[in-house]
């Protein structure tokens, strides 16, 4: 035991804990850049829609604004590329599990983008009001069934595969903690909203918004626990 204590006491202080392996900050900035790209793309659509509202051609000013916004998207893509390069350099190449994990995440992200684009296309317009992002307008039957099958049948299979093959115990632990926080947030938050609604202080509880908040809390805690 004495020798053990000496060994532990001789441990050098960790010089730069984030120098290797910890890619949380870079990933967070990549996510922020991706969100920025979505909003900038939305701004471009908005500018084009406003400029051509009366059937007019795009003015020079509109072209300049769109050019600036495209430049912002270009800068954000460059930033993401640079951050991804930094992730690749730090801590060596990805392990087999990490590659599988990344591929599943990228695949899910692409599928999510396809679903989002399909829903926007079905609605016929880009929603200008954030409320319409949680639209409950009717969907064509075939599309509704297709989305329900994807979400209710295929997603559980992907999730099972992800949990059993792609993630390791540290990530599983982070995911579990995220689930606890989200579940408690739901158990405490939803009835609180319900009481306040019944007291006339808040609008009626919105199930979709509650679902989104649940997912956001879970994701945020998972990210913090995994990459802190």
């Amino acid at each position, binding site marked *: 035991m004495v020798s053990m204590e000496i060994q532990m006491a001789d*441990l050098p202080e*960790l010089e730069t804990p984030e120098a290797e*392996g*910890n890619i949380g900050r870079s990933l967070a900035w990549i996510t922020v850049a991706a969100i920025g790209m979505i909003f900038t793309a939305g701004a471009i659509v908005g500018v084009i829609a406003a400029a051509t509202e009366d059937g007019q051609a795009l003015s020079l000013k509109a072209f300049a604004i769109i050019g600036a916004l495209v430049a912002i998207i270009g800068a954000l893509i460059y930033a993401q590329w640079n951050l991804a390069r930094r992730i690749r350099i730090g801590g060596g*190449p990805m*392990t*087999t599990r990490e590659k599988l994990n990344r591929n599943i995440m990228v695949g899910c992200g692409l599928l999510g983008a396809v679903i989002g684009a399909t829903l926007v296309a079905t609605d016929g317009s880009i929603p200008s009001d954030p409320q319409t992002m949680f639209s409950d307008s009717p969907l064509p039957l075939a599309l509704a069934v297709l989305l329900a099958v994807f979400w209710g049948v295929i997603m559980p299979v992907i999730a099972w595969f992800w949990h059993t093959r792609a993630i390791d115990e*540290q990530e599983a632990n982070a995911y579990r903690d995220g689930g606890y926080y989200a579940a408690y947030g739901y158990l405490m938050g939803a009835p609180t909203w319900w009481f306040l609604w019944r007291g006339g202080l808040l609008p009626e509880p919105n199930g979709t918004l509650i679902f989104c908040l649940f997912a956001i809390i879970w994701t945020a805690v998972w990210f913090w626990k995994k990459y802190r």
Partner: protein
Amino acid sequence: MQNRLRVLRAERQWSQAELGERLDVSRQAVNAIETRKYDPSLPLAFKIARLFGMSIEEIFNDGFDGDTNG
């Protein structure tokens, strides 16, 4: 929990990715254990001990040095 993982890895000149590959975990997991932000499960601790040819107690120390035998 204190551990000697970083030192042992450095002695073998392994990157976090190499160690992660040998343990079948991510670089992030290796980093989290080395920086004491995550304590590995017992099965992973045994796996680490076997990889370095040591006992768990030679790698991990919970700071408890009392006599548990009364």
